[in-house]
């Protein structure tokens, strides 16, 4: 007995089947475990990775964490295409099917409330980046060393003038990015049933160009998704220094925690 049950998500019983070709952890297709009026989306995982002690070690390994996070998201993303899905946080693990049933019992009322609230809705992510140097040939301005790769300035005055003009250009981009973020968030919040502002992302992790200024999530009815996407396009300016990025549709991750024990971030989300 060296297999545990990894629980990806909770849904209601639904007509239809799991999307074909979905692979979760270990390349295994997930399985549906019915229990009363709820369904857990589960997968068998090896105890040598997912028991408490090894799991703690594994989670410190970025490659393993990345693969696990992607598999977790892949299953939840696929479920979202067929039914309303409440995503669980990464690494929710039970010892066996009875453990999963206990988990469903323990969280029953929360799951039912959350499913009702999220039924027919998906999450869209909208980010705004300020990119003062949109030319990829130029390096990003580091805070410590604003290196000038071009010819050396002829004089100290030249140098200062050059620094001043590049700083003014950067500030212009920041102002436009902030103004756009406000407009986008105000307009999109009106079209969404809920909105959540996340912390801006660091480019070392996202590997995105420029500086993330707005990182927002919107809860949108499935049937309004096309209009929502079109609205984002309409509000996106032609601006080399300011970029808008749309991601989704996601399972409603950013809105799943609110009814339960909301973390500080969820609690602060605007509605």
């Amino acid at each position, binding site marked *: 007995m060296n297999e*545990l049950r990894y629980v990806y998500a909770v849904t209601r019983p*639904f007509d239809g089947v799991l999307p074909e070709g979905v692979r979760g952890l270990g390349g295994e297709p997930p399985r549906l475990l019915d229990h009363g009026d709820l369904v857990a989306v589960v997968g068998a995982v090896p105890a040598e990775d*997912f*028991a*408490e002690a090894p*799991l*703690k070690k594994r*989670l*410190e*390994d*970025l490659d393993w*964490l990345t693969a696990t996070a*992607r598999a*977790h*998201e892949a299953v939840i*993303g696929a479920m979202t295409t*067929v*039914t*309303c899905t409440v*995503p*669980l*946080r*990464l*690494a*929710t*693990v*039970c*010892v066996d099917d009875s*453990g999963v049933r206990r*988990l469903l019992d323990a*969280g029953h009322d929360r799951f039912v409330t*959350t499913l009702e609230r999220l*039924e*027919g809705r998906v999450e869209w*992510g909208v980010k705004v980046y300020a990119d003062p140097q949109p030319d990829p040939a130029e390096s990003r301005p580091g805070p410590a060393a604003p290196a000038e790769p071009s010819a050396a300035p002829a004089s100290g005055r030249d140098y200062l003038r050059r620094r001043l003009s590049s700083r003014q250009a950067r500030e212009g981009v920041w102002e436009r990015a*902030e103004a756009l973020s406000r407009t986008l968030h105000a307009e999109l919040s009106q079209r969404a049933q809920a909105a959540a502002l996340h*912390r*801006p*992302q*660091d480019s*070392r*992790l*996202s590997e*995105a160009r420029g500086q993330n*200024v707005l990182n927002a999530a919107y809860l949108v009815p*499935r049937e309004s*998704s096309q209009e929502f996407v079109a609205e984002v396009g309409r509000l996106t300016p032609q601006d080399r220094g300011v970029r808008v990025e*749309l*991601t*989704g*549709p*996601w399972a409603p*991750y*950013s809105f799943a*925690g609110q009814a*339960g*024990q909301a*973390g500080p*971030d*969820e609690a602060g989300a605007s509605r």
Partner: protein
Amino acid sequence: MTTPNRLPDPYGSQGGGANLADILERVLDKGVVIAGDIKINLLDIELLTIKLRLIVASVDKAKEMGIDWWEDDPSLSSGARRRELAEENERLQRRIADLEAAPARVERKDDEA
């Protein structure tokens, strides 16, 4: 019964090439927290703490620029206070430029001497 076919095709970084930060901030920081049989607190994981800090690190940079509005209701944040910060920022930057310029002048004097 839902109508999955009405959904537009995935945008942006879904799928294989997904932005790791987008995925991590959702699967680690969002979603429903419920205890399974295996007790694990993601906040105890050192790497996760570091990585999550990475996700939020840029907030400091943005704060320097006076863009801190996501921390409060936008309607509560005062434009006047921001202008004040911008002015102070400009004053400080001018002061830094002056200070940085000072050694250059000294050098030139040395040359002339």
